[in-house]
């Protein structure tokens, strides 16, 4: 009687000490549940508030479910809210964010992957020095380079344009992404690169035919990182963007910061939800990749 291989892997010791003590297990569950509720609470409030009417909200029962849930506030937020320049709602902001996102993603991934590949798989003079420099760059706060960046973007007429925002995002992402790519590509077995060169492949050939096909995972991770980061960005979009074409986060802030008039919290929450949904969807569907993305970004520090 042979033992099924699928079982065999579980025959290795039950890893840790499961909290055999049922008391501690119960306490843990309780604590975890309490925290889970606390963490989920803001999202719940956001959703619930966005579905209520302002009268209901003014009654002050923040956790109560809406009496008659309605998507009016959502409609308002998407189509009609005053978002700074005009009353077109978040709709335009959404598309602006997309317009900013796509070139940023393309450029940042293209430049950093090629550079990371060169540093990882080829002999580049001063390669190590460049990596150290990039490491330092990754930590430099935006405020330090903000003003010169503004001046430079004005000079090349990219200031106040969506493409300018994309360029700035690319610049900001290059240090970290290059390091991430470098570390990933460095883990590709050297023999594969050598074999490719023996077969006549050179720099680009090896990149396109050998390295890239091995990289779907890291590409997804980087894409998730960038999409989330760029979509959620505020300051860069505000500083460099076209006043008529701000990304969604800036629109959101404008909507909610109106000092005049009535504060329509249901619309604000609906607007927040609309802005949060794209990255949240990515998060809920990509699970592990998302985690790998954030840890990849951090562990290079």
């Amino acid at each position, binding site marked *: 009687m042979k033992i099924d291989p699928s079982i065999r892997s579980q025959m290795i*010791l039950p890893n840790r*000490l*499961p*909290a055999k003590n049922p008391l501690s297990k119960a306490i*843990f569950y309780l*604590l*975890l549940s309490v*925290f*889970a509720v606390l*963490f989920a609470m*803001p*999202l719940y*409030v956001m959703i619930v508030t966005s579905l209520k009417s302002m009268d209901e909200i*003014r009654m*002050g*029962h*923040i956790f109560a479910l809406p009496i008659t849930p309605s998507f009016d506030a959502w409609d308002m937020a998407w189509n009609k809210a005053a978002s700074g320049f005009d009353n077109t709602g978040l709709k335009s902001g959404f598309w602006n964010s997309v317009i900013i996102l796509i070139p940023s993603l393309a450029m940042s991934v293209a*430049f950093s992957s*090629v*550079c990371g*590949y*060169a540093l990882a798989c080829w002999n*580049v003079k001063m390669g190590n020095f*460049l990596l150290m*420099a990039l490491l*330092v*760059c990754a*930590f*430099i*706060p935006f*405020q330090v*380079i903000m*003003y*010169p*960046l503004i001046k*430079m973007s004005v000079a090349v007429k990219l200031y106040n344009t969506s493409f300018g925002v994309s360029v700035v995002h690319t610049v900001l992402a290059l*240090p970290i992404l290059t390091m991430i790519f470098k570390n990933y590509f460095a883990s590709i077995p050297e023999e594969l690169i050598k074999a490719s060169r023996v077969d006549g492949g*050179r*720099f*680009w050939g090896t990149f396109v035919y050998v390295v890239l096909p091995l990289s779907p995972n890291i590409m997804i991770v980087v894409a998730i990182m960038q999409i989330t980061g760029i979509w*959620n960005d*505020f300051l860069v979009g505000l500083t460099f963007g076209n006043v008529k074409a701000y990304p969604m*986060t800036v629109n*959101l*802030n404008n909507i909610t*910061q109106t000092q005049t008039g009535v504060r329509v*919290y249901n619309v*604000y929450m609906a607007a927040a939800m609309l*802005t*949060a949904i794209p*990255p*949240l969807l990515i*998060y*809920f569907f990509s*699970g592990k990749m998302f*985690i790998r993305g*954030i*840890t990849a970004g*951090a*562990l290079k520090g």
Partner: protein
Amino acid sequence: MAKVKGTSFVHRHAASLAVVPVMLIALVFYFGSAVWSMVMSMTASKIFPDMTFVGVKQYIRLFSDALWALSLSNLGWYALGSLGSLVLGFFLAVMLESNLAGERFFKTVFLYPMAVSLIITGLVWQWLFNPSMGLQQFFRDLGLQDFDFNLVGKKETVMWALVIASIWQSTGFYMVLSSAGIKGIDSEVWAASRIDGISKLRMYIEVIIPMMKFTFLTSFVLLSIGAVKAYDIIVAMTNGGPGGHSELPSYYIVDMYVNRQNIGMGAAGSTILLALVLGFILLFGAINLLSKKKE
């Protein structure tokens, strides 16, 4: 690298050339800007650059500004408070290591705030802290009359509001980092501890936590730098109020550049910020080297 006959200069140096764009960007945008900031901070620039050298006058002006001093002290409290993310994240990771059912569910719940923009974080928590319609009202309705949870409205407590929002946002991240660190212990070592009769608590204190020194150090640096960079959340939650009591240096600098139009002082502030960040990195490097030497 063997040179293949007949290939062009471009081909032979393809790798080095590929690196050039990034190198240029790093040099020009990052180092160039840093140098520019440092230079400008020592000039008399106001709305327009003015290359008159004034030594450390801008810095003196900067540090005489009560608002700047306030923002620095706020930064200290904020960074300290943010450590809560690390502590909470670690404990959550420890609890989740007990092989409980629903581990994935819990992890998903703790981590989702990371996916959300800081503007939204600030907005939601501002709403939660709303005195008449938010949490304060909730607690009052429960019978606790005069319960005070208006953290955002009062200058003594506004930083705590920011800290709470920021802990909500980043705990998941530090939970993931801690989890990875805890999993670094081989399952056979756990088995050995069971045979030796060593309690889980002891294992954490004497084996796991020491093993995670590097992770903790890295987290501390990341948290500090995150605090230094914090901007969006202030805009969304408090706009620096009340009375500048929730301003942080990054916010102050942007304000200085954009609203108060003072390049000189903005540059000075940026340079200080840069120094802070570099300081943290050096500290990190030093501690890392020291602990490696001890082994």
